[in-house]
């Protein structure tokens, strides 16, 4: 007690503008208050006890398979987000300012994709289309047949369409939200229509949609495990195989959840970095 009193007696000089100092000390205090240290310690203890008391001896045996599954999950995620975004731009544009003949089908597509579960879409494409194709001899004879017999093209197609459906709606709002004056002034400069789109409209729309794009990319990651139901070997299906082989309930699933958490964190970080690259004094 006396010590504490003694410390307070060493007077802190009165500052007329204590803004910076207070900001620093308060932010440092809010970073790690005591209860949070305890929570972190409890969390570490949980992780440590999971590492010590659970069975992890299967890890080296399945290491290669896990890496392969991880690679395939990320590959599917990146490819479908990229292709889906390419599809979403015309979908959004058609809905935002297209003629009715384009806007209505685009709107219908987005409604159908957003109104049905991805699992049904995936199974419709894989089992439905997959059962139709062999009936036509010219498809069986074509060069594409070796690919159409595998599962991953259907997985990529379903996830791409799904992402395009959700993102098309976002891009519609983003295209519609670009201030009219920007487009009018571009037209006043005599820019051709495609140049206006490339230089003015699309960049500003993407900038507007970027925070949502990050969220949608995380949602897309969260729907990738569905491809395991049509025999694509992704991270999730590796985990279920481990569960079947070793009869372990918790360990593979916990590792799987942790893996998805890490990938989510990386996606969020990447998008934050991209967002920071763009000067945010638009419009």
């Amino acid at each position, binding site marked *: 007690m006396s010590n504490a009193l003694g410390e307070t007696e060493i007077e802190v000089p009165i500052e007329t503008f204590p803004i910076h100092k207070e900001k620093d000390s308060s932010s440092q205090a809010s970073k790690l208050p005591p209860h949070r240290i305890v929570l972190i310690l409890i969390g570490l203890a949980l992780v440590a006890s999971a590492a010590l008391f659970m069975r992890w001896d299967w890890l080296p045996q399945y290491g290669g398979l896990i890496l392969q599954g991880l690679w395939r999950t990320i590959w599917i995620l990146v490819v479908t987000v990229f292709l889906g975004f390419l599809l979403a731009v015309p979908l959004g544009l058609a809905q935002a300012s297209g003629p009715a003949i384009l806007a209505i089908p685009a709107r219908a597509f987005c409604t159908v994709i*957003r109104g049905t*579960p991805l699992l*049904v879409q995936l199974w419709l494409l894989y089992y439905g289309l997959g059962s139709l194709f062999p*009936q036509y001899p010219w498809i069986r004879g074509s060069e594409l047949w070796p690919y159409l017999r595998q599962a991953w093209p259907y997985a990529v197609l379903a996830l791409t369409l799904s992402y395009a459906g959700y993102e098309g709606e976002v891009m519609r709002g983003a295209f519609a939200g670009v201030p009219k004056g920007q487009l009018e002034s571009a037209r006043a400069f005599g820019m051709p229509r495609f140049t206006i789109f490339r230089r003015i409209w699309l960049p500003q729309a993407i900038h507007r949609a970027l925070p949502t794009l990050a969220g949608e990319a995380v949602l897309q990651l969260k729907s990738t495990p569905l491809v395991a139901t049509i025999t694509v070997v992704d991270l999730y299906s590796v985990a279920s195989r481990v569960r079947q082989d070793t009869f372990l309930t918790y360990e593979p*699933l916990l590792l799987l959840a942790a893996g998805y958490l890490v990938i989510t964190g990386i996606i969020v970080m990447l998008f934050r970095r991209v967002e920071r690259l763009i000067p945010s004094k638009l419009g």
Partner: protein
Amino acid sequence: MADASIIPAGITGIFDLLSPVAPGWGANLLRGLVRSLQIAFGAFGMGLIIGTFGAYGKLYGGPIVRDLAAIYTTLVRAVPELVMIILLYYAGTDLINRILEGLGYQRVDISGLVAGIVVLGFVQGAYATEVLRGAIKSIPQGEIEAARAYGMPPTLMMRRITLPAMLPHALPGLANLWLISTKDTALLAVVGFSELTLETRQAAGTTKAYMTFYLAAGALYLFITLFSSVILEWVEKRARRGMPSVKEAR
């Protein structure tokens, strides 16, 4: 030639396959639809309850409650629903049974319906927490302060002021959650609960008419979505009456 022989047979076959009477599989699909809706309603309701507590915890709770709520929403929203469902469905039932055995009780068989509702409700709760938290924060804070100044006890204040005042702000997010909840029921097909998607898969697998059944299931889901969005729009309009329209404000 092949097409010509297949298509007429297909068209006459479709109605036989989808008819609700015994040789057709329509009754199975409708049963699955009812189960899906039961789970969606249950999960949405449970999500609302968890979400209300979560939002109150995040806004008014102590530092530990706030951190725990943040961990809950972050974890659940970052891990895929399918993984959460498998984790909670298998590991959860296993854990409950182990605890029961440890306490000297008999193992219980948890019904698929209850497990499905609890699992999806747990996931929905995380999203509902965020929606409701945002809605409570967008109430003019003077209203809550005034209620507190009148000396209202917290539950009365919640019932009379906070919940009614936040409803218009929460409805768009909650409508979205309801649509997600109807679609997430399809994931329970993976753990073998026979809702609409699994019934469809069984019907399609038995009859080999994959296209017909998956399209029918898709149409049913789409019907639910469109029907509920009409109703939700009406509810939202009613809840927002007297307030400036969101669309005009933009």
